[in-house]
């Protein structure tokens, strides 16, 4: 399968906002077992955040002095600090509810999308879906505003695909493998 090229003009840098991390989870509706899917794009009021792949690397050197490096696994994670308590934040409210109940077993219920809007075309942006991810809150407090920094631990259970738009009501279409 051919590699999709960046949809950027020659030498144009990709703006940071074109790399989008989205959390998705199920919320019960009413008293029954029915649920609805809720999403939130992460990054409001965050100045700097990167996906860290945390590779587990093993390096050996043979008797000729040549190095061999194996990447055994990656454990990607992304920290959002600050993650401010903001009015209208659905994920913030969800995590705060988990925190106050200390229901830490519920922290692994998230599906995460990483949308690379600098790859693909309008209506077909490349994205990857990580199923069964964990979002952990690491502290709560701050100075003038309440901050609850979070770290997303991606599962690496990946479904590649595309999204049709860059708002949280996007439709994710998995790639078809022939």
């Amino acid at each position, binding site marked *: 399968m051919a590699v999709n090229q960046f949809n950027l003009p020659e030498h144009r840098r990709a*703006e*940071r*906002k*074109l*790399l*989008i991390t989205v959390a998705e989870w199920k919320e019960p509706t009413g008293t029954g077992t029915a649920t609805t899917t809720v999403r939130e*794009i992460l*990054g*409001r*009021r*965050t*100045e*700097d*955040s990167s996906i860290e792949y945390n590779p587990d690397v093993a390096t050996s050197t043979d008797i000729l002095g040549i190095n061999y490096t194996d990447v055994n696994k990656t454990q990607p994670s992304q920290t959002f600090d600050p993650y401010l308590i903001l009015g209208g934040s659905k994920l913030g409210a969800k995590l705060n509810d988990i925190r106050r109940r200390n229901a830490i077993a519920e922290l692994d219920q998230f599906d995460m999308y990483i949308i690379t*809007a600098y790859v693909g075309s309008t209506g077909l942006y490349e994205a990857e879906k990580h199923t069964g991810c964990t979002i952990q809150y690491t502290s709560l407090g701050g100075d003038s505003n309440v901050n609850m920094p979070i770290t997303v631990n991606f599962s690496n259970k990946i479904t590649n695909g595309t999204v049709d738009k*860059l*708002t*949280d009501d996007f439709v994710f279409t998995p790639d078809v493998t022939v």
Partner: protein
Amino acid sequence: MDKNKAVIDFLNECPEIQSHPLYFNFSQAKDNNKQIVTTGNDKAINKPYIDGSVLKQFTFTIIDYKSIAYRAVVKQPGYTDENVEDMAEVQNIIDWVEEKAYNRVYPNFGSDCFIENMEVLTDNPNLNGTDTTVTPALAKYSLSIQITYVDYSKALY
């Protein structure tokens, strides 16, 4: 949304300003004339966020001209000093803005902007100088107001 117009509309609700002429950037130095003076806002302090929104500041100054009196302040029942009273009138503008800020009542910068904070940069007015070449002689008081807002107009989502 023109932020200058928004600020003018906002300030026109201040009783101290309503009762006197308000000018924008240019005015004659006359007793009780008030003047909004714009300030170039330094882009270096803008704070971009990863969603494409930007934290910005909008700063402007209000100048208030007041006639001055050359009388000593004396301690007599019922005595009022014009200079002290004038200063208090300018202080009223500061207090009004601070009260609005405390209640989170801000100028309308439009739906693309979310005002985070508004503050007067000094607790009391600056006395920038006097003009004794006019009659009556005038004092020039000023106060600067800084509005911190998040501009979502370039946010992608």
